[in-house]
């Protein structure tokens, strides 16, 4: 659903149902973003409701005039509301810029597979599934990708969410997060490369490529 000037004016004139349609169209994708930051369903829903209320007031008060792209404006509110709530419950501020690395043998992108593999070490993931001879099935691939997404640091997951789910460009993400475009591109690239590496380690390469082709 594209929010244009006509829709904004109709909401200003009291057509609240249109705002409900906007909420329905954007709520899940926006909720995914707040979950990546807050990691708690209740807090994420509160934060998202707060974001929608801010959007509604911005429309009613005429602060949003549909001149800028709606999704950039909206996800910026969603991100900042989540960060505000994060600050309320956490002593440390949310750090999207740098990733803390304490290991001297650290290689770029190690943090992407570190948590995922730590889970395997702790038997949180069924080790029987961690084999290169594994036959490729949709559910197994989904399982590994889901585990990977849940394990990666928020410095990556927030950017991936904005890029793949919220359909924001590298530049828009850079503006919202106040980080260089290069960092955004680099993190998306590294996250994908690490995912590829993990998939090839879990499955037979030829079989996997054959499966993907189909």
């Amino acid at each position, binding site marked *: 659903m594209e929010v244009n000037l006509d829709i904004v004016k109709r909401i200003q004139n009291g057509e609240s149902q249109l705002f409900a349609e906007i909420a329905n169209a954007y*709520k899940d994708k926006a909720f995914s973003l707040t979950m990546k930051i807050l990691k708690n369903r209740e807090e994420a829903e509160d934060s998202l409701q707060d974001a929608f209320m801010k959007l509604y007031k911005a429309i009613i008060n005429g602060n949003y005039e549909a001149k800028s792209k709606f999704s950039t404006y909206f996800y910026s509110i969603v991100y900042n509301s989540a960060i505000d709530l994060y600050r309320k419950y956490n002593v440390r501020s949310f750090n999207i810029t740098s990733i803390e690395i304490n290991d001297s043998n650290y290689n770029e992108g190690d943090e992407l597979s570190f948590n995922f593999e730590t889970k395997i070490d702790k038997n949180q993931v069924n080790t029987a599934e961690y084999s290169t001879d594994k036959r490729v099935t949709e559910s197994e691939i989904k399982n590994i990708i889901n585990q*990977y997404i849940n394990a990666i640091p928020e410095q990556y997951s927030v950017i991936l969410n904005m890029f793949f789910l919220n359909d924001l460009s590298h530049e828009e993400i850079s503006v919202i997060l106040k980080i260089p475009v290069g960092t955004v591109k680099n993190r998306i690239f590294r996250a994908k490369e690490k995912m*590829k590496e993990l998939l090839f380690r879990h499955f037979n390469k030829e079989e996997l490529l054959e499966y993907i082709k189909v």
Partner: protein
Amino acid sequence: MENNNNINRFIDKSFEGALLEKTGTNFTENLMKEIELTKVFKKEDKRTFGYLNILIISIAGAVITSGIALLVLLGSGASENGEREGVFSVLTSMFDNINQRLYSLIGISFTENILLYFGGIVAAIILFTFLEKAVLKRGYN
């Protein structure tokens, strides 16, 4: 090359699915209830401020009227034999009486000048309040 493109496309699509999380089923319903409540509060706020404005205007009107009345009372002339005349003569003598008692008790009395200054200060406060309300209009937050 083709394999690489295929796996990239596959990962892009898979990421989208893996990243998506859904809100509770009543999310939009609750949000719209919250919005409706905000509208009600806004209407109530408007009504309350309307009443408040009427109250302020009434008080201001009463203060100004009383001030003018007092000035008229104090300014009403005495007759040639020294006695005050007119409808306000009783009120004026009562005011003089109170004034004398105040002077004997706390050492000050209300002269015309003091009342003028007092009236001026009250008028300035009222004017300031109205100007402030007109300039700093309460936003819808």
